[in-house]
């Protein structure tokens, strides 16, 4: 649907387009591994519906205080 819309507007060469959810979280955790574990558990319990959605943690970085 989105790809077809782009094509109609003259944007050729779009092979695929998908629209999804991007969730940004700021969490407190002792280190990167525990932050990753925490976010994974959030995804399993609330942030995604496993019937229709997958998830991946795209990036993880430390914020300055």
């Amino acid at each position: 649907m989105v790809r077809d819309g782009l094509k109609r507007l003259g944007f050729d060469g779009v092979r695929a387009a998908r629209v999804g959810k991007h969730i940004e979280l700021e969490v407190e955790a002792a280190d990167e591994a525990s932050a990753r574990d925490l976010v994974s558990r959030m995804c399993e319990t609330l942030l995604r519906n496993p019937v229709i959605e997958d998830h991946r943690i795209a990036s993880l970085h430390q914020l300055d205080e």
Partner: protein
Amino acid sequence: MRFGIAVFPGTWSDRDCASAVTLAGHEPVMLWHKDADLHGSDCVILPGGFSYGDYLRCGAVARFAPLMKSVADFARSGGLVWGICNGFQILCEAHLLPGALTRNSSLEFRCEPAWLRVETTTSPFTAQCSRGDLLRIPVSHGEGRYVADEVTLAALENEGRVVFRYVARDGGPVGEQSPNGSMRDIAGILNDRHNVLGMMPHPERASEDALGSSDGMRLFKSVTHAVAHEGSFANIW
């Protein structure tokens, strides 16, 4: 008998459900989402609307309300739970029903009459209907396309748990006229014990002739008849 009607922030069909219950000659009691008490309800209705603004996913946040813990316990003990529209979405998110409701295939919010065929009468919600009956009951949703994996769909079909299917006005296959593109044209399903029903169409909006149809009242009458004659539903179906 007493129908408990859940009220979450953003619920919009609670008063319509209460009106239908009153028309059927029974007592509605509103159940606030922060309150875990079901106030002696014989049947709990999770009405339509946009609970918690439908943030994240429809029904995803409502699932964690204090009221829903009680509703889940009530359902597991055989109590009647009836999710309509957003209530169906909540029941799927709460894992009280399988599958999920996703964006309508048209990508549009659809508010229009729909024709449903009754596929099973072995439920307290349809016991007063006949198999094959056509009911005119409106839909009003943007995310009502029922999806589930093939194993789940096969189980629903084989166990007589598809309770309503969208059909054309003449009773034939709905085809492209489906309001949402649901798999197998599914409009409503039951849990394995047949005491929990989820349906996207709004029977409370078809509860008297002045609304264009009173077909929805047949479902309210089925529930009240079942409660009056069976009392408890644990494992009776």
